[in-house]
C-alpha cells in the first residue's frame, strides 16, 4: 500500500505535465526567434523519470515535424467568427420558426373561440326569437352567457339591445370576451318584424 502511495506521489506530477504537453498547441512550442520552448526549459519533474522524458521528447518531436512540414499544420478548423456566425444563424432560424409556430397555435385558438362565440350568439338569438314580446323583454333583461360559454371564453359578457326604426324591429346581441389587443365585440342581429317593402305593401 505504501509503495502504491509513493509511486503515485512520484508519477503524478509527471502525468500532469504529460497531459498539459499533449494539450499544448504547436504554435506555442515556439517563441519568436527562439527554439522550441520545450527544449529550452526542460521541467525538473520530467527529469525525474527518464522514460517519461523520452516520451515527452518524442511527442514534442512529432509536433515539431508536423509544424515544420507545413502540410499537416494547415488544418481546416473553424475560427471564432465562423462559430459566432453559425450560432447566430441557427438561433435566428429557431427564433423565427418558434415565433411562427406560436402565432399559428394562437390563431387556431382564436378561431375556435370565435366559432364558439358565433354558436353562443345563435343559441341566444334562437331562444329570444322564439318568445313572444312580453317574454322576450323579460328574457332580455335577465340575459347572460351560458355556463359553457363562460367556461370557454374568459370574461364573457353578453349585451342585448332592442331596436325599432326604419330598418324594422330587431334585436342586436353583442358578445365580448378577454382577447389580446383591442377586439370589437361579436354582433348578431335578428329581425322580429322586417320593414315592409313596396312590393309587400
Amino acid at each position, binding site marked *: 500500500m505504501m509503495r502504491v502511495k509513493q509511486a503515485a506521489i512520484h508519477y503524478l506530477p509527471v502525468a500532469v505535465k504529460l497531459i498539459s504537453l499533449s494539450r499544448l*498547441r504547436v504554435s506555442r512550442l515556439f517563441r519568436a526567434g527562439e527554439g522550441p520552448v520545450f527544449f529550452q526549459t526542460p521541467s525538473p519533474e520530467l527529469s525525474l523519470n527518464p522514460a517519461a522524458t523520452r516520451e515527452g521528447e518524442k511527442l514534442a518531436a512529432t509536433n515539431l515535424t508536423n509544424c515544420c512540414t507545413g502540410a499537416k499544420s494547415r488544418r481546416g478548423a473553424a475560427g471564432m467568427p465562423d462559430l459566432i456566425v453559425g450560432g447566430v444563424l441557427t438561433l435566428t432560424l429557431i427564433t423565427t420558426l418558434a415565433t411562427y409556430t406560436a402565432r399559428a397555435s394562437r390563431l387556431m385558438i382564436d378561431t375556435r373561440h370565435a366559432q364558439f362565440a358565433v354558436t353562443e350568439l345563435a*343559441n341566444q338569438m*334562437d331562444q329570444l326569437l*322564439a318568445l313572444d314580446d312580453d317574454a322576450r323583454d323579460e328574457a332580455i333583461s335577465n340575459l347572460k352567457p351560458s355556463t359553457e360559454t363562460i367556461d370557454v371564453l374568459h370574461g364573457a359578457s353578453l349585451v342585448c339591445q332592442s331596436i325599432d326604426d326604419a330598418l324594422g324591429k330587431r334585436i342586436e346581441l353583442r358578445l365580448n370576451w378577454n382577447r389580446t389587443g383591442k377586439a370589437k365585440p361579436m354582433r348578431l342581429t335578428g329581425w322580429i318584424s322586417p320593414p315592409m317593402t313596396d312590393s309587400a305593401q
Partner: protein
Amino acid sequence: MKTRHAFTLIETLVVMSVSGLLMTLAITTLERSLSIGTQTADRIDDARSAIRLVDQFRDDLRIAKTANTSAPSKLEITLARSVITYEIDKGTVTRVEAIEDDKTRKETYPLGYDRTAAFASQVPDRISLSITFLTGLKHEPTRLDNFAIATIGSRIAKEQP
C-alpha cells in the same frame, strides 16, 4: 513567426455538442412548423363540417314536431312529412332522412378522429348538441369545441297565429 490560434479537442467537442443541440432544436421546430400546415387544413375541414352539422341540426329542430334523444349518440326528429335520425359513431355524425316510401337521404359529417358529439334534452323543449375535442391530457381530457341549443318547433310556433 506568425502564430495561429486554433482550438483544443475539448473546445471543439463542446462546440460540436452545442451545435448538435441547436441543430436538433432547429430540425424539431422546422418539422413542427411544417406539420402545422397539415394540421390546420384538417382542423379547418373538421370545423367546417361541424358548422354544417350545427346549422342542419338547428334547421331540423326549428321545423320539428317532436324530438327525442334515447341516447346521447342518437336523436330522432319527427317532421310533418318525414323522420330524421342523427347517429354519432366515432367522430362521425350521420343524418338519415326518410323522405317517402323507402327513399332515404343520407349525409355524413366527419368531425375528426379526436372529436366526439353528444345530444341532450334541455328543459323545457330544447335539444343541445355538444362537440368535444379529446385532448389526451390528464388535467383536461376533453375540451368543449361547440355547443348548440335549438328550440323544438320554434319556426312552426311563430308561423301559426
